[in-house]
């Protein structure tokens, strides 16, 4: 499928936590937003604008009050949430003068906010403090955060993802995946414990992705190498995607934390005919033990990278899905370019 992918590591003088491709207007500049920090220097958390192919020096940067924990990009807005519980929105052109921030505190989040996603008009934020907020434009350059739920510490959220303008999914520690419907009074309408490996009853959900054309299917990555899909039409039967929970002989692609999952538009499903209805589309994942791979239902996983250090985050370029950028634990970022031949065949 992906013939001769080329990979290049770029060492940087700071630790990169999260990475996202930014929409670029010109074809020459490939822009990346990187959430970075350097623990040896106080107040060194930043959002950097890096450019490829030479990301060594940031083109622009925005200081953040604490370590960034979530980063998402919509076509027009770039949003970052921090470990203290604040949210920062800026235009995706990285105009640092027009940043809008919501400070952390009793009115918003206290503690890390790891669930963050844009659903057209509104942003959803879900924090480890168990609170879920919807943030929308309040007019005249202000934003309004509306509390949807306060778990009062009974739940801690780690991930959030919109399915449509009325539905979104959240996930966290111990609570599995939850499906929220705004039309039914902003309430949880379905819940799934998930499938966890190594004889563990419950795990932490780290990442959720929902395919834009199949809004009833969530794919979930979590602790102990768990990757599963949850189809709302059969909410009681999550579908295992990693080796975990399949059959005894299947070797799991990884046994450590799966930090991020994303549907991979570049990889074609091996079975195109049946792909129309029930099949889960190919999913890319990255993990603590340094694996970047593509997993597919009932298929052998395709390993793209096996790094000696953790891959904390990755992003597939929406404009050019053969390119993947990933944040490596050892203060560097990696850029993976998959073969162009397969692109032409699509």
């Amino acid at each position, binding site marked *: 499928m992906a013939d001769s992918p080329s990979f290049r590591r770029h*060492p*940087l*003088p*700071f*630790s990169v936590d999260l990475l996202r491709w930014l929409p670029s207007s010109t074809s020459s500049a490939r822009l990346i937003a990187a959430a970075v920090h*350097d*623990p*040896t220097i106080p107040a060194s958390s930043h959002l950097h604008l890096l450019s490829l192919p030479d990301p*060594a020096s940031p083109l622009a940067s925005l200081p953040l009050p604490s370590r960034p924990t979530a980063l998402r990009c919509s076509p027009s807005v770039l949003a970052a949430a921090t*470990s203290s519980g604040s949210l920062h929105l800026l235009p995706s052109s990285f105009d640092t003068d027009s940043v809008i921030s919501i400070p952390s505190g009793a009115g918003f989040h206290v*503690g*890390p906010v790891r669930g963050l996603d844009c659903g057209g008009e509104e942003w959803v934020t879900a924090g*480890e*403090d*168990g609170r879920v907020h919807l943030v929308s434009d309040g007019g005249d350059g202000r934003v309004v955060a509306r509390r949807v739920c306060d*778990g*009062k*510490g*009974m*739940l*801690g959220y*780690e991930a959030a993802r919109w399915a449509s303008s009325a539905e979104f999914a959240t996930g*966290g*520690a*111990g*609570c599995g995946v939850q499906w929220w419907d705004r039309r039914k009074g902003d309430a949880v309408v379905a819940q799934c414990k998930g499938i966890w490996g190594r004889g*563990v*009853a*419950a795990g*932490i959900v780290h990442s959720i992705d929902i395919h834009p054309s199949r809004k009833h299917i969530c794919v979930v990555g979590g*602790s102990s190498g768990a990757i599963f899909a949850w189809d709302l039409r059969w909410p009681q039967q999550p579908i295992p995607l990693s080796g975990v929970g399949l059959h005894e002989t299947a070797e799991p692609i990884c*046994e*450590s*934390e799966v930090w991020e999952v994303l549907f991979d538009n570049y990889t074609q499903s091996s079975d195109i005919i049946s792909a129309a209805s029930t099949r889960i589309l190919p999913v890319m994942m990255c993990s*603590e*033990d340094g694996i970047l791979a593509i997993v597919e239902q009932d298929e052998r996983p395709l390993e793209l990278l096996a790094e*000696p*250090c*953790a891959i904390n985050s990755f992003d597939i370029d929406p404009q050019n899905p053969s390119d993947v950028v990933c944040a490596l*634990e*050892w*203060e*560097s970022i990696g850029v993976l370019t998959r073969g162009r031949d397969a692109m032409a065949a699509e």
Partner: protein
Amino acid sequence: MLADSGGGGAIVPFSGDPNHAAPPPPPVRPIRHGVAPPISRVFVSWSSGNLLQVACLSGGRGAEEVAGSVVEVNLAVANGSAEVEQEIDEAEMRRIEYGSVPAFALLQSRRNALADAAAMQHMHSVSERAEWWQYVLQYSKTIGKLLGSPDSLPGLMIEDPRAILKVRERPTSLKAAWELLEIFYVDKNLHSWLPERLVDWLADYDSLLTKTDGTVYCKLSDFQKKLINLQVVENDPDYWNGLSAALSVGWLDVVVNMLRFHGSYQLDQMDNRETENGLVEAVAVLVSTMPRMRPDLPTGKLGQCCTSRPDFIKAWEKWRGQVSKLECSAFWIQCGHQKTRDGLKNLLHIMMGNIKDLTAATSHWLELFASHFLYIRPFTVGFEGMHHLAQKCIQLKPSFGNSGLTGLLNGILSENPEVVLAECTKKFGPWMVTHSMELLAADNEYADIMLHEERPNFGGLSIEELHRLVYAQVLSSHSLTWQIAPTYLSSCLNQGLGLLEILLLKQPIQDNRQVLKTLELCRLYELENVSTNIMKIAGIYHWKHGRKGTGVYWFQQAHDKVRLDRIAQQLFERIGKSVADDNFKQWEGLVELLGSDIGSAGGLEFLHRYRDFKRSLQQALEGRTGEAARQTVEFLIQLMRNPSTPQRFWLPLLHDSVRLLNCKPCPLLNVAETTLLLNKLQELSMAKLRPDFCTNHLPSHALSSVRLALASNLARAILEEP
């Protein structure tokens, strides 16, 4: 040592050692702790890395003041003794540290594999030894590549023809030292042309030899600056000095290039300086055809390669013959330019190995040393001969500014691995020592024994383990590199594992992701009890900070029965207290979270039934639908019938239902059910007299109000009964 930023705070004077006449003033760090004086107590303890935690407790009685605070002081001071850190900044050093982990781990696993194979065969085969040497060479090359600057300068499109020294990446002493060790200890392929290898090394790193005394490199770069303003180069003595210096250390390409600057090459002068030009060209040709005892030459370097000794001797004698023939030639008389004549003759003398001219041409003893290999003793082999020669050169050109590289070379030539190790420690820091030990012991039995022998005065550690532990400590002290310390600790058999456990337990647990990363390391090194402990600590932390869900999650992952039971116990104690809706939600959430894990507390079933009862009771009281009320009563009867329901909850349960029993026009309970409840009430009244009866927080009239409600219900039920 402790001073408040306000100025009027606590100052603890530092008393120096009275035996010393003048103790140096201690470094003072102001700390902003914000605690109003007087401060009654100060606690100081090490946190992770270079962080010092200072806790200040106020002695004041004012309630509105800050009673105490904990501040973290970062004591990170750059280790000035290591020369490496002046050349390589911290981020670059960390890049080297990260990059060397896979190479180091691979070499360790290969060593273990070989040891296992040897144990199976009960002998050391020769091929194994050879194999090992190949592995170490591969390791050395990988790390050497890492030490080269990653962003090497892009090749210039148009090369300046007047450039003497090639522009290339800035050499670092760390890489120079690494290559030196590789040349002498590992690379067996090159042993027969070791002198030439040393000449190459000098060409790369000559600029690093000394900062105070001059070098050939200095001479040439000074001349390069002067060159732009020079009209007639051959009149300048520095031109000839530079030429002889470059030739003496064997930079033939530089010499030939420089000779072409000579004025006689200029077209307008060709006619009247023909002989002069012929002599310059003849010298240039001789320089470029110098025989060299080596397998190949990199592109751009000059000389003719000879791989075998007889070939070389033949070529050498022929070449020397040509040199001396030119020296005695009659053309010199026709050469009108005095400086050219003297300069060229000097070059010929250098090529003929005139020791006086060589000594004059070179600046540093190492350069003189290299020139000996080139022109006087091309067959020098063996450490003893080299060492002897080095001593002679040092006597001729004593050096004062020691750069570490010369010390290292001295140690190598005197066959003294202890000195080599000490130089590495002193000048290049713990990274270098830890990684270079593999090179030292690759093919040197003495060094092998010296490094691996367990020493009782080190508590049974070997020198190798000691240095690895030191390096691991350095890595652990930085919050970005601590994750690679386990690789080195796990290669230490004696104390590595113990320190690894301490390292893992000391990691901060505030951030869930950080905890997961630490747990991953525990899994990798199969430290299950450590991971259980970390989960428990994380659980307590989150529980204490109100994130009960996360807390319970960690307790469950740790299978911490004790704490889960305690939580379940707390849930029991809440029962019967009149709980507000909001609190009940929280209580309900906790029961939900605990799930099946509170089974051992004996009351899981009860808690779930109680929750169902309470839920439907609320519905019944709000909605007043007959359905919900009937449901509630059913739950109540089930609870009262069930033997697992503790007696102390009977009265609270009944008391909760009083409002429901009273408000309905038609009786909810039939006669049998009411009798059951009355019997339970009776039992309770009897039990009250026993000494072990525990009272609950209900009002004193609770019992009588329940009795009244039940009695009236019974009366109505009897009337209803057909």
